[in-house]
């Protein structure tokens, strides 16, 4: 468009002049202001004429902002109505002559020029009408024609204002003693500022156009216009270098996002079994997954314990300790040597197993071993205590962290279903299998939420429910008490039996039989009774866990009881052997020195296998624990194999030739037994903690067990089990499991600490042999290796006078922290209540407010244009049109009319939502009758 180009040049020249002439900062500022007004507000603004005081101007801007918006809407409506088959080319064509005229006028002179300049801006906005009152004549006619009726009222108002402002301007101009020349300068300077702003505006549009929810065609057209505009005027205002920088920034953002995503993927890939667990979760719900997560956590913890034990005890012993067969404790006794390699013996952890690095008895009591002077006994004790310390710390820390996470549960409830509905699909899924998993997981999660919701909605007979719950608890307490008494009774009897020889098979195995019978009968019994209570499955699981836990404590009790009996008898036996061996040794030395007259204590020339030795109760205890663990593993795996796998196979394949439906009927497929598995894991860990001190190899076995069990159970659950009838969501924090674990940890800490602190270690095996107490090794180290003052320091620290105040202090601290946390809890509740209230308030507010805004209109605009939809895709006249809907409509088109009216209504009904006030009022685009799209461009979707 050459004409337009010419106009632009003229304007450019003007601007240059202005810049060179202007020496008055205030003037310029005023002009800017005026220009801004002129641009954004159309008529109302333009009349500001920059002669008002700044503050006044600002005020004006504020109050006019809504009006301007309303006008914007009107204008759009008007433009649409006018509709004219104008597309944007027409617009610019239209505009060009005016521009030129404006430019010419500008050059002409003073106030007149200013007017025409104003003219221009208005023309560009399609707001010609407003000037009518002032100037009248031809311009007004034109404006009216374009604007249509909708504009009329507004216009009148504006005109009034117009006049007022004009007056004001005149006053101020006389005040400011500026001559007409100056006037002209400021004005053209204003033009420049306006242009600058407009260009900025356009640039912003160009930068943001990709964020606008418009159809691509419209975007392309708008972009082209904006670019043309910018290209045209930028030359005058200095090159824009923003684009390159912007592109660079965009690229960097892109890279950064990619990197973040990759990093996230990498991190997820580093979590072991994440996919496996997710898969289980998607089919069986989070409750089953919570077991596997717990299992994984256990595995992590055991790996650390394993590292500690093997790194600091087992491997140094293997590398630097005396080899097998060098001393009696490292040698299989002669009596056992024949059978030491038999499979059955090895499976009982006797023979070579017993005299290996796996057990306590193998370790020597040398203070230091190897070249490094590694203090093995000290290390042994410290690792034993350190394992407990680490486990305690880890469990408690995890619990605290989980409690933190658990706090978020409440506020999440706000949009549970909505979020699930709208955000659960992962749009990146492109793989059929993944998609299937995702469907399953979404369904499962919906079911979980539905169960929760049904629980909430249940209206119940509270009294009946309470009665039933009390009854159930009563029954369960009875059965727990009964089984407790039974265990006690049986243990007592077994002590009696221990002294007799004439036992029947039943009497020998009574204890084990009763215990396994209880373990078999009670859990299902509890489950049946729990039906009465009608709890939410999640809570029911907790109750079930707690009850079975209590039952199993009986198991633990009998086991420990038997163990201590054994230890005591071993201790007595050991005492006699010790005496005997000391006596024999004395005898030997006496004979030796008497015969050879040599007092050198040469050891007797005896094979280490022949030496008399004590029973070494520590190794016995260790073996007991290892056996227990191994048999536990066997039982668990066999149960899965038979109870789940065989059952599933039978149900699946016998179903073809059976008289009733096995799958739906009686045996059916197994469900995954969460409570049983969790408790199995917890008690197993208890065994490890208790046994690890006496059998360092136990931790290794446990690590292997957890590892294999992860794969095995994952497979089993996916292959043979069916989801629970009511899939329920596990609480986010599995603190209940952790609580059980902590309890077990504490319980297993007791016997170990008791043995370490009170029982005398065996005299001829283990790292502490020869000492009266195991912890003497610490005293020894303090005495021999640390400087003397450390010793005194420790003796002070061990003083009861210091310990009692310390304990008191800790109790006080606990009390204090407890009350603080309670206070926080209270305030948390308060805040939650407040949030709820705020939400309700917002709801009410929105109820009364028309919530239409720019985005609504954009949405409206994006509605498919059904009239366009052709049965056959290609339709020649469609694509070339940059804006199909608005531009194609003729003024009188009835079908469109409704739509447009709606548009107008939407635009004017809620002026506040139409874009931030602080934004510089933007140009309407260069055309006299802007397309609908241009009008749209103003208000960005509210963020």
């Amino acid at each position, binding site marked *: 468009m050459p004409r337009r180009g010419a106009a632009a040049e003229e304007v450019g020249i003007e601007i240059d002049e202005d810049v060179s002439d202007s020496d008055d900062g205030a003037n310029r500022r005023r002009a800017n202001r005026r220009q801004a007004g002129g641009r954004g507000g159309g008529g109302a603004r333009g009349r500001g004429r920059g002669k008002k005081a700044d503050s006044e101007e600002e005020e004006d801007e504020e109050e006019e902002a809504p009006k301007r918006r309303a006008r914007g809407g009107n204008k759009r409506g008007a433009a649409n109505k006018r509709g004219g088959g104008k597309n944007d080319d027409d617009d610019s064509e239209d505009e060009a002559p005016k521009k030129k005229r404006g430019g010419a006028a500008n050059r002409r002179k003073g106030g007149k020029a200013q007017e025409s300049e104003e003219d221009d801006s208005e023309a560009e906005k399609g707001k010609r009408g407003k000037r009518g009152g002032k100037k009248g004549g031809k311009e007004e006619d034109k404006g009216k024609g374009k604007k249509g009726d909708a504009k009329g009222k507004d216009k009148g108002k504006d005109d009034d204002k117009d006049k007022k402002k004009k007056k004001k301007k005149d006053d101020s101009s006389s005040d400011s003693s500026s001559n007409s020349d100056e006037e002209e300068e400021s004005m053209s300077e204003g033009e420049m500022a306006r242009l600058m702003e407009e260009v900025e505006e356009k640039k912003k549009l*160009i930068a943001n156009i*990709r*964020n*606008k*929810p418009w*159809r*691509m*065609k419209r*975007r*392309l057209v708008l*972009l082209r216009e904006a670019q043309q505009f910018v290209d045209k005027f930028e030359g005058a205002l200095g090159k824009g270098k923003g684009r390159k920088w912007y592109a660079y920034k*965009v690229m960097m953002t*892109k890279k950064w996002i*990619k990197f973040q*995503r990759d990093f996230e993927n990498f991190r997820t890939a580093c979590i072991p079994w994440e996919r496996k667990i997710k898969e289980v979760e998607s089919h069986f719900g989070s409750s089953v997954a919570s077991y596997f997560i717990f299992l994984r956590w256990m595995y992590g913890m055991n790996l650390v314990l394993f590292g500690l034990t093997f790194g600091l005890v087992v491997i140094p012993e293997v590398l630097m300790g005396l080899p097998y067969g060098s001393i009696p404790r490292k040698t299989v006794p002669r009596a056992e040597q024949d059978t030491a390699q038999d499979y059955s013996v090895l499976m009982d952890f006797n023979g070579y197993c017993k005299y290996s690095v796996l057990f306590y008895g193998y370790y020597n009591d040398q203070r230091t071993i190897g070249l490094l002077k590694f203090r093995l006994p000290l290390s042994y004790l410290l690792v034993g205590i350190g394992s407990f310390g680490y486990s305690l710390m880890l469990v408690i820390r995890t619990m605290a962290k989980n409690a933190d996470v658990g706090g978020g549960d409440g506020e999440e409830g*706000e*949009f*549970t*279903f*909505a*979020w699930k*509905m*709208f*955000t*659960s*699909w992962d*749009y990146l*899924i*492109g*793989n*059929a299998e993944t998609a299937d998993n995702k*469907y399953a997981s*979404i*369904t499962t999660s*919906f*079911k979980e939420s*539905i169960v929760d*919701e*049904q629980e909430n909605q249940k209206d119940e007979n509270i009294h009946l429910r309470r009665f039933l719950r009390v009854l159930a608890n009563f029954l369960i307490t009875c059965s727990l008490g009964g089984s407790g008494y039974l265990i006690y009774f049986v243990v007592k009897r077994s002590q009696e039996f221990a002294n007799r020889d004439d036992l029947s098979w039943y009497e020998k195995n009574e204890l084990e039989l009763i215990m396994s019978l209880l373990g078999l009968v009670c859990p299902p019994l509890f489950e049946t009774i729990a039906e009465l209570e009608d709890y939410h499955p999640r809570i029911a699981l907790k109750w079930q866990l707690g009850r079975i836990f209590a039952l199993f404590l009986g198991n633990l009790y009998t086991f420990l009881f038997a163990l201590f009996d054994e230890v005591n008898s071993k201790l007595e036996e050991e005492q006699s052997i010790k005496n005997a061996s000391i006596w024999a040794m004395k005898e030997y030395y006496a004979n030796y020195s008497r015969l050879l007259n040599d007092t050198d204590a040469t050891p007797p020339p005896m094979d280490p296998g022949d030496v008399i030795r004590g029973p070494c109760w520590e190794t016995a205890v260790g073996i007991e624990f290892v056996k227990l663990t191994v048999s536990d593993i066997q039982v668990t795996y066999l149960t899965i194999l038979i109870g789940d796998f065989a059952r599933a196979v039978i149900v699946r394949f016998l179903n073809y030739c059976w008289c009733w439906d096995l799958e739906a009927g009686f045996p059916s497929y197994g469900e995954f037994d969460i409570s049983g598995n969790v408790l199995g894991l917890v008690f197993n860990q208890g065994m490890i903690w208790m046994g690890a001190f006496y059998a360092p190899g136990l931790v290794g076995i446990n690590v292997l067990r957890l590892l294999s069990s992860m794969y095995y159970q994952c497979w089993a659950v996916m292959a043979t089990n069916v989801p629970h009838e009511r899939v329920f969501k596990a609480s986010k924090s599995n603190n209940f499991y952790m609580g059980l674990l902590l309890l077990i940890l504490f319980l297993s800490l007791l016997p170990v600490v008791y043995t370490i602190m009170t029982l005398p270690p065996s005299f001829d095996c283990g790292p502490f042999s020869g000492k009266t107490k195991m912890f003497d090794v610490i005293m020894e180290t303090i005495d021999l290796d640390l400087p003397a003052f450390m010793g005194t320091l420790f003796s002070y620290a061990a003083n009861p006078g210091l310990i009692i105040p310390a304990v008191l202090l800790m109790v006080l601290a606990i009390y204090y922290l407890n009350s603080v946390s309670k206070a926080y809890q209270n305030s948390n509740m308060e805040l939650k209540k407040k949030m709820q209230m705020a939400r309700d308030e917002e*709801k009410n507010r929105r*109820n009364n407010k028309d*919530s239409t805004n720019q*985005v*609504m209109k954009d*949405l409206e605009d*994006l*509605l*498919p*244009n*059904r009239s*366009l*939809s*052709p049965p056959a*895709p*290609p*339709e*020649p006249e*469609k*694509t070339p049109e940059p804006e199909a809907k608005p531009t194609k409509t003729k003024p009188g088109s009835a079908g469109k009319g409704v739509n447009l009216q709606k548009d107008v209504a939407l635009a004017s009904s809620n002026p506040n939502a139409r874009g931030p006030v602080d934004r510089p009022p933007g140009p309407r685009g260069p055309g006299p009758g802007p397309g609908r799209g241009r009008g749209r461009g103003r208000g960005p*979707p509210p963020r």
Partner: protein
Amino acid sequence: MGNKQTIFTDEQLDAYQDCTFFTRKEILRLHSRYHELAPHLVPMDYTNEPDCKLPLALIVDMPELKENPFRNRIVESFSEDGMGNLSFNEFVDMFSVLSEMAPRELKAIYAFKIYDFNVDNYLCKEDLEKTLNRLTKEELTPEEVELVCEKTIEEADLDGDNKLSYADFENMISRAPDFLRYI
């Protein structure tokens, strides 16, 4: 452009670049994808903006969309005629909005449109039911579906008209932690 055959003019590429979240290369790749969908329909030369549209059936077969339960809706909401016929412009538009660079607000708008099955700019119960059934492959019982839809509306509906307007939707989705991650 180093291409032997000119697909777009420089201006066109620049324009696309400004209007989408794609680079030049990506736009060319998009074009080749578009071209591959129907080699006999789509011209290689786009310099004079040929008018050509691909039907829905071709587009939803793309691996990117194939597994998506809302694939038809996605394509439909980006097509101007609402029937799922996409011109290249709309095709680019679709992938631009779905790209990870697109801002939350933009995605929210289009997500709303996608879930709006009956195209009335409100998410009403039928829309939600359809959404839910697609998400779960109709594995939930009708009562469960009913319950979920009711709860969803109850949760997110702020103006009490028993359907979700965009304002409701936006308000709800803006607080969702997963939204940007997944869409």
